[in-house]
């Protein structure tokens, strides 16, 4: 014992201050409190996931357009096209195009020349047998909105000389045998393909990862946050969330939902909020949740930048 400590103890009094009655008070307090498990955080995470699934189910992705129309030809003859979107899709079972802003990578056609071209195509379409479709050069999903709000989902199979159209809701097949129109439409589609580059995406991904790492390092240094987990429960919770998030991502990729903005936004919200909750619950004294919050900010900014890049 140092003389400093000795002297300080003398001044504070040698007799023990931590009395039996104080001990009894603490024990009484402990006995009165039933140790309950805190369910609030797991419930919030489960709630967020359920909400996410509900949004998918009742949102625009889960809704089926109930508009009944006789044929795309009649509709195109009666009404003009307000706008339409187009996206590449080789899967015949899934329809990927949707309202502007809902699907990543789709092209929004709002210019009058583009609309007139599709209008002419649809007006000249004739109903044909499905088995006539044999070979096509390009395949596109096209979502069309007419002036009065009616919506059509079309799968288009484009050749140099003709175009096949499938009404996705009615599964009826149409054909446009006009060489000039087919050529013009093919040019319109090919004109777009080069814009969405893979190299740009990779550069953005690298920049995003670099900013994430830098932000993480900076926050750790600024708030003196250790790299190790707080305890084994924290480690288990973090790994459980990581596995759950990876599984969710796999499902999203397998199902082809990765293109939908609402799915990506929802996935980001669920994964980031669960991470913030876990870090706050286990390491709020060490300000660990600041790491998740900073990565959430970087993630959302990157998503916004990405959407700007592709639009």
């Amino acid at each position, binding site marked *: 014992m140092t003389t*400093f400590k000795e002297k300080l103890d003398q*001044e504070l009094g040698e007799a023990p201050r931590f009395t039996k009655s104080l001990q009894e008070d603490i024990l009484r307090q402990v006995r009165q409190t039933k140790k309950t498990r805190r369910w609030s955080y797991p419930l919030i995470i489960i709630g967020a996931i359920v909400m996410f699934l509900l949004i998918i189910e009742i949102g625009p992705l889960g809704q089926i357009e109930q508009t009944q129309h006789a044929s795309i030809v009649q509709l195109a003859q009666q009404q003009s096209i307000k706008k339409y979107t187009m996206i590449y899709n080789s899967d015949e079972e899934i329809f990927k195009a949707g309202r502007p802003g809902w699907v990543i990578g789709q092209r929004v056609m709002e210019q009058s020349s583009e609309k007139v071209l599709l209008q002419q195509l649809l007006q000249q379409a004739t109903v044909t047998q499905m088995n006539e479709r044999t070979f096509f050069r390009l395949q596109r999903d096209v979502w069309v909105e007419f002036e009065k709000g009616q919506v059509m989902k079309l799968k288009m199979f484009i050749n140099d000389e003709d175009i096949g159209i499938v009404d996705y809701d009615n599964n009826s097949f149409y054909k446009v045998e006009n060489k000039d129109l087919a050529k013009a439409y093919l040019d319109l589609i090919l004109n777009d393909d080069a814009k969405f580059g893979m190299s740009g995406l990779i550069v953005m991904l690298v920049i995003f990862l670099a900013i994430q790492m830098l932000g993480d390092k900076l926050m750790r240094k600024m708030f*003196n946050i250790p790299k190790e987990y707080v305890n084994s429960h924290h480690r288990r919770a973090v790994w459980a969330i990581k596995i759950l998030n990876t599984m969710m991502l796999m499902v999203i990729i397998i199902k082809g939902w990765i293109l939908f903005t609402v799915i990506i936004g929802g996935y980001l919200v669920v994964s980031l909020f669960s991470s913030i909750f876990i870090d706050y619950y*286990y390491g709020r004294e*060490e300000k660990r949740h600041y790491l998740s919050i900073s990565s959430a900010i970087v993630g959302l900014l990157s998503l916004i930048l990405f959407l700007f890049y592709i639009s």
Partner: protein
Amino acid sequence: MSEHLVAIMEEHGEYCLRVAYLYVKDWAMAEEIVQDVFFSYYLQQDRFEQRASLKTYLVKITVHKSHDYLRSWKNKRHQLLEKLHIGASKRTPETMLLAQDERTTLTNALFELPITYREVVILYYYQELKVREIADILTCAENTVKTRLHRARKMLQEKLANNKWEVLMNDNF
């Protein structure tokens, strides 16, 4: 469970109470803080992973609880009332002599230090913790602890000029 808690309180209660007192300068408040410390430990004991000693862990909780109290309105109100009371009391030669005598004691010199400097002295010289452990408890860098210790020693030197405590002697942390 309560037997385990009793054993822990027997072993660690006294110094936690003294640390809390050195933070808040009030025995009644220090007792409240220590009650809170052991109650918190009981509720969240699964968070203690024995990476540090139990003593360091309990000191860490005590420090955080003391900080919470010092930041609270309860403490601010208490300090204000104390100042008003001192201002109102008459200064007689007897009280002035008593006050002069009080100023010479180590505890009072310590209490005159700002909390950021006082706490490093308490943890380093009184609790005899290492700089690394103090940095961990206060969630700051080791160099920050060393700087604060250096400044705290200088401040104490001015207040305790006639004494030669080791706290005022060496500077090797």
